[in-house]
């Protein structure tokens, strides 16, 4: 089992009170699954994804990643997991505006022990996979929204992670470019055998995946595998 969440709670302190964003989530995801997480706004989707990505820690419950209890790891160990095992794709892209497409893609290498002479080659490979092999030296502001998100996907791929986590990756894109982005995820899923978890609002996007998890008020209310 790649991912195993047991009784995950997450509470945020707001002022003097606290708000429970996750209220006991149990979830198991196998290696190479392609999963969509859906649910109304505020239902806890992002919170759950951050916990899965070791960016945040649960207030209660245990998270086993590859059989390892994440709750026992320190800051540096979590950083290493984020770097080598997980690739993030955000709704708002989060590219560094001053850096070229190639440099943005190579960013994760900075925090890795990938030898320097391999970095450029691997980044170019990633960019070719998302169809941007010809834009290496462009700055993000010279690209369209769809292209920017493809750079972010290439960046999430360079470290060859086990898991790719995408938080509404098509949320800022029109339907056509959104479909292009999802096509890329599908292809990566079938070619790389990576585990991909995508948060989305749109049922059409969820159709690209093999499994749809519905969240509501911090709990999983539905979990269906499609054909």
């Amino acid at each position, binding site marked *: 089992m790649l991912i195993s969440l047991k009784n995950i709670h997450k509470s945020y302190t707001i002022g003097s009170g606290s708000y429970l964003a996750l209220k006991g989530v149990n979830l198991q995801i196998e290696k190479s699954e392609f999963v969509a997480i859906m649910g109304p706004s505020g239902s806890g989707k992002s919170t759950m994804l*951050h916990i899965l990505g070791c960016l*945040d820690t649960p207030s209660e419950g245990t998270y086993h990643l590859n059989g390892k209890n994440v709750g026992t790891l320190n*800051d540096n160990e979590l950083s*290493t997991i984020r770097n080598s095992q997980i690739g*993030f794709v955000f709704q708002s892209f989060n590219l*560094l505006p*001053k850096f070229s497409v190639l440099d943005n893609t190579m960013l994760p290498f*900075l*925090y*890795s022990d990938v030898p320097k002479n391999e970095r450029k080659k691997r980044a170019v490979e990633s960019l070719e996979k998302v169809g941007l092999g010809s834009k290496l030296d462009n700055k993000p502001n010279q690209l369209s929204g769809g292209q920017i998100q493809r750079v972010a996907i290439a960046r999430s791929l360079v470290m060859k992670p086990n898991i790719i986590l995408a938080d509404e990756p098509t949320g800022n894109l029109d339907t056509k470019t959104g479909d292009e982005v999802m096509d890329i995820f599908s292809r990566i899923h079938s070619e790389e055998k990576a585990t991909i978890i995508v948060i989305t609002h749109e049922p059409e996007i969820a159709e690209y995946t093999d499994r749809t998890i519905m969240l509501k008020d911090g709990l999983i209310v539905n979990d269906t595998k499609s054909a």
Partner: protein
Amino acid sequence: MDFIDHITISFTSLRSNVFRTFFSTLGIIIGVMAVVALLGIGKSAQRSIELSFDSFGSNSIYVVPGQQSDNFGPPNLADTFTLSEVDRFIDYPKKYIEGIAAQTFTNFRVQYGNTTESQTILGSHGDYIEIQNFEAEYGRLLTKKDSDQRAKVALVGPDLIEDFFNGENPVGKTMRINGTSFTVIGVFKKKGTSSFDNPNDDIMIPFTTYSQYLVSGDNLSLVSVEAIDPKFVEQAKDETRSILRKIRGVGTNQEDDFTVRDSGEILSSINQITGIFTGFLSSIAAISLLVGGIGVTNIMFVSITERTKEIGLRKSIGAKNRDILIQFLTESIMVTLLGGIIGICVGIILSFIASKLLDLPTEIYLDAIGLGVLFSVIIGLIFGIYPAQKASKLNPIDALRYE
């Protein structure tokens, strides 16, 4: 992440904000500039003082008439030594003293050809030439015979060839000092100069001649004594005191009516004065460095706030707290180092100009450069660590959400 990566990231970020980078370095530029200029000018001044004392030598003792209470001050001009006192001192049997000289000087109008100018005329007596290590460039030096004969001869400084003798070798020529004809018998070799003491444009004549033709009376303002060896300076001073007390008839219970000092004492009191001066100016430099440092802290906070999302992103792709800390520390050190390098350049130029204006020898300020670099790196470190630490401790989720 290695050193080159950190430098590259910092450079990219600084370059994208050239204007702000420059302004954040301004305080450091001024501070380091002050440090470097100070050190440079201070060093030149010190060097020039040492140079002027080098020409006397470390076994020199000075005797001025009158009681000087403080370490360093003008002699009382009313008190003098007479020629006969000095001659008795010279003839007195001595154990630790090998040379005695006396001198006095005044400015007189000197006429050569069609030019008449005011020049410093130095009347010298005793072993003056030997103690001060004069050597002849042209002609000869003054001798005891010149002194005994009250000869109207003059030894002139090398600078006067250009400044006064129209570039000609003046040996054998005649000039008029205060109306009296003198023959130039020699030009001495150029001596080390300082702003305090430039003998190279003096005219030197025997004191006997000086007192006969130029001023009435035989009053000498300074007696210099040379110990037989630098290690006997103290004994030579004691000997000087006891002989001069006898010659000047100072009673057993009376205090000396003259003051004996060695060159080391004079040097250290001058150093004390320049020390106070540089100490005062260094505190100004320190204040500008402090203000500059606070400016750097400020600018780093602005930069970190602007780049909160970037910090969140870097953490989400695997940056450790330490990576973020070093990234921003590198950036602040690069800012201060840049300011430091500019400050060093400007400071060197300033001290170069200042030493030219003040006619001090120009020194190479290697330690000033080292100190400038060291200061700017340390300030970058001290004033960058707090913002960098804050940046490194940001929660990645909060940082990513920051708008």
